């Protein structure tokens, strides 16, 4: 990805051997794409088909066999949030984390909350039906309420500019509306989540970010298929 960021000769050497294994749709991979693009770092992309994983991917990530994998000078880095911290430590321009230790701890806390609680609860609301879905929606909205409060007085979770937490929650800015359309449920509305909706707009429209969104129609098809598989498996309780 080209960028107008200034790079030193040293950085050019470091950049030379940088490869990202990703899929076209994975929100975890998108985090890494955004981090690298925001910092103006050049890299090669290898698109994986997860139903037919390449031998290189399996070699680099034998434990989880998943994407993203970032390979830097032949050394593999795994797990998107770990990769983001690595990128931030090697390439200091456009920092993703603040300098103050307690602000860093807060950022890490919310990124973890997003992955541990918000994403699974929204997925549950997406795949369940009937009473189970109603309960799942309540949980998802409670979690989203915690996130909403973090945006008080801020354009992005990181303040004026996009940071680690924004990238970690990036999936909310495109996948949430896909889920809502596929399962016909509104999870976030203007009354309860005005700040989150504003953040979604700001994030989705931000330069660099908006260049990498996967095609929405392909995402709808993909998640429609997931929805059918899951809702036909789930017996109503």
């Amino acid at each position, binding site marked *: 990805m080209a960028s107008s960021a200034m790079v030193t000769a040293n950085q050019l050497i470091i950049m030379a051997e940088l490869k990202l294994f990703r899929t076209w749709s994975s929100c975890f991979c998108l985090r890494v794409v955004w981090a690298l693009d925001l910092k103006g770092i050049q890299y090669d992309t290898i698109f994986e088909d997860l139903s037919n994983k390449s031998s290189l991917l399996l070699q680099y990530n034998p434990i989880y066999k998943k994407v993203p994998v970032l390979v*830097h000078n032949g050394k593999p880095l795994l797990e998107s949030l*770990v*990769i983001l*911290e*690595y990128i931030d430590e090697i390439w200091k321009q456009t920092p993703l984390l603040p300098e103050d230790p*307690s602000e860093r701890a807060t950022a*890490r806390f919310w990124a*973890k909350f997003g992955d541990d609680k918000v994403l699974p609860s929204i997925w549950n609301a997406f795949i369940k039906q009937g009473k189970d879905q109603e309960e799942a929606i309540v949980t998802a909205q409670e979690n989203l309420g915690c996130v909403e409060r973090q945006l008080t007085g801020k354009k992005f979770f990181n303040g004026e500019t996009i940071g680690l937490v924004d990238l970690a929650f990036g999936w909310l800015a495109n996948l949430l509306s896909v889920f809502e359309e596929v399962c016909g449920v509104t999870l976030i509305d203007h009354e309860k989540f005005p700040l989150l909706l504003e953040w979604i707009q700001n994030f989705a429209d931000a330069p660099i970010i908006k260049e990498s969104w996967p095609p929405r129609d392909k995402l709808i098809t993909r998640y429609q298929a997931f929805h059918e598989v899951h809702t036909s498996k789930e017996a109503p309780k």
Partner: protein
Amino acid sequence: MAKNDVKVLGAWPSPYVMRPRIALNIKSVNYDFLEETFGSKSELLLQSNPVHKKVPVLIHGDKPICESMIIVEYIDEVWTSGPSILPSDPYDRAIQRFWAAYVDEKFFAAMKGLRSAQGEERKAFLDQVTEGLALLEEAFGKCSKGKAFFGGDRIGLLDIAFGSFLGWLKVTEKVNGVKLLDEAKTPGLVKWAERFCADAAVKSVMPETEKLLEVSKVLAAKMKGAPPPKN
């Protein structure tokens, strides 16, 4: 900030609570340990960790920091005059963070499953735990590079993440009548475990296995008396 303006909210049997305590010991930071009463949550806990309502919480001055490994990294970043908990090389840091996340997500899930599983399920969890330990044995070889700990000469992030589970690992061995850390299969980890538990930063906060066994029995009895889980 006053040196003793540091508090840890916790419970002595919790491996997660051990982690910030070990980190503070490494940095020679004095702190007040505020013990939560088993079965109830203090006002201070509910105020300082309203999202999860869980221990540990580090309170530094008036700032609460939550989530055990996030607290450990915070301690490392604030108290820079003491020995470093994370390595200085970014790739080594990434490796330590990766394995610490593996311990919390995969390994702990398998151990937890093994503790409460019955019959056929037990074997499946036991296999998962054994597999996990084999992976960690390999990781130990690579991270330690022949030295005493995952962190090298001194205890580091991954030592703290994994080592904090050693007490409960021993309880699991006793309750299930199996040897999980084994001189034949995981020789590196066996010796590492001894060194870890004997380390000055760990000794005072690692609970005795017998005491943990008692807690384990109380918890198991509570679970049997509890209503059946929702799903």
